[in-house]
């Protein structure tokens, strides 16, 4: 087997494309810091003067912090729960030949095609009939429902064509089912699990309409932000917050990578 192989040769045009693509992804995001230091409440050119007042406004705005924390809490819980449900679903569907699974799978995929306003209204009617008060928990439940289809589809791509023989080889060695999952299946589908977590978090973190119907007096960040549309005075504070979110996540990701690079188990070679 050719060690390393052609894949290790750098591909210049593709790299240029990748950089261009990242530029496309980041272009609108990089405007946020620019306007967050602009002394105007409107996000519009021409720029006026440099200011840090929006950051002061952001740090002083307790309601916004609460909304942010609510959103993080809902996003993390919803993405973890949805991904767990997604793993069961995707594994079952790809591992076993199940009779009549297609219509059953349709039920699971329903939230993808039902307009969120109908989901929101219907779930709210259901909850108020049952006398359950609205809270972040009800929002989380709603978000789990809309995340599960995304999780399953993403994970199915990961489980599909998954070589059963590997699990079976592990089983040969006498491992039990959970251990097999942890040692064999999990590492192989890990990219899928990570993708599912990231996608679900992204959906939940940005979802507005279901959250609006299912939230009580604790708003999520999108509810808070949409609430500012009548009076834009606080929007630049949200801009500052958006800038901070990007900056903090960037720092955390790079810090984690840097720490890893310093560790004893630095770069490994690909393949065998």
């Amino acid at each position, binding site marked *: 087997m050719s060690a390393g192989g052609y894949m290790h040769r750098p591909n210049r045009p593709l790299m240029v494309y990748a950089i261009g693509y990242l530029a496309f992804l980041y272009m*609108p995001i990089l405007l946020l810091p620019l306007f967050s230091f602009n002394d105007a409440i409107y996000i519009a050119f021409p720029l006026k003067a440099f200011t840090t007042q929006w950051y002061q406004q952001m740090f002083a705005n307790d309601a916004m912090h609460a909304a942010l924390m609510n959103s993080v809490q809902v996003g993390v819980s919803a993405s973890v729960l949805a991904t767990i449900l997604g793993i*069961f679903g995707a594994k079952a569907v790809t591992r*076993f030949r199940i009779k009549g699974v297609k219509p059953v799978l349709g039920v*699971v995929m329903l939230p993808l095609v*039902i307009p969120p306003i109908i989901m929101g*209204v219907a779930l709210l009617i259901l909850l108020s009939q049952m006398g359950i008060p609205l809270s972040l928990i009800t929002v989380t439940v709603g978000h789990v429902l809309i995340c599960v289809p995304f999780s399953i*589809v993403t994970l199915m791509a990961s489980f599909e064509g998954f070589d059963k023989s590997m699990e079976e080889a592990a089983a*040969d060695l006498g491992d039990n089912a959970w251990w097999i999952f942890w040692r064999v299946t999990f590492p192989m589908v890990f990219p899928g699990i990570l993708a599912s977590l990231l996608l679900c978090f992204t959906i939940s973190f940005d979802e507005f309409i279901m959250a609006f119907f299912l939230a009580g007096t604790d708003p999520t960040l999108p509810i808070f932000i949409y609430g500012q549309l009548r009076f834009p005075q606080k929007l630049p504070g949200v801009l500052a917050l958006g800038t901070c979110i*990007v900056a903090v996540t960037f720092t955390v990701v790079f810090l984690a990578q840097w720490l890893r690079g310093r560790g004893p188990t630095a770069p490994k070679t690909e393949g065998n």
Partner: protein
Amino acid sequence: MVDATSLSEPELTESRPRGGRLATLFRRSESLRGYALLSPTLAVMALAMCAPTAMMVALSFWVQSGFDITMTFTLDNYAKVFTNPIFEALFLRTLMISGTCALATVLISYPMAYYVAFHVHRRKLAWVIMMTLPFWTSYLLRVFSWKVVLGYNGAINSGLMSLGLISEPLEFLLYSPEAVIITLAHAWAAFAILPIYVSLEKIDRSLLEAAADLGDGAVARFLRITLPLSMPGVIAALLLIFIPTFGDFVTPALVGGPDGMMLANIVQKMFGKLNDWPLGSALAISMMIIVSIMCGGLIWVTRQIKERAI
């Protein structure tokens, strides 16, 4: 490899109680074991979804009168959905927008996912997270940014004007179906990259190396191995973008202008100002059915192609 399958069956179920007809049946029937594994997900989803679905279906056969719903069975709502020319026009526009958006997003994202899967060897995780990070800022803020970029006095128009390429600002860049497509393609980029990346990452590198050893060129290797094996990811990405964008209402409302309105905006209004929940439900169900048929068609066609290829 094949013989391993039969060999391992008893091992997997070793922890389960032996003996007893139920247990035997359980071990023999793949369907049962599948359903057992599927049951937590299925139970949660079925329980939670039966109310919205039932409500929607029931509503669609009833009539709105004032703020009450008259519960007499009627097909009028569906008749309206299929005869009113507005719905037809909006349907075609919605199809055009979300179809273009899904295709374009998948096309431009594939090379990116390919790059990360095959040409990035260190810090892969960082790359994957880098590509989702932009989406952790509020959608509303990103839309405001796009308005600044696409607007009449925006970055693109100003740039083109100063280069002397255009004399009048391009108006179609904002408040138009084009603006909806651009904004959506950006917003859903992660939903194309991640599934495609996942399916590319999974491809057994030894297959490619074997093909290389047999003298296949880069293009042949891509067309014969990489592309077919990454199709599950591509299909997943197409569906994950097409279906939600077909039902999107936020983007058209913010950047679509009067010519960029989509079907879901009308559904939204039916549950608000237009105050016709039954018609809104009928419209939503019709949308669901049409979208499901189209997605089923897509999956069927790819399967046909796959089988023919083999």
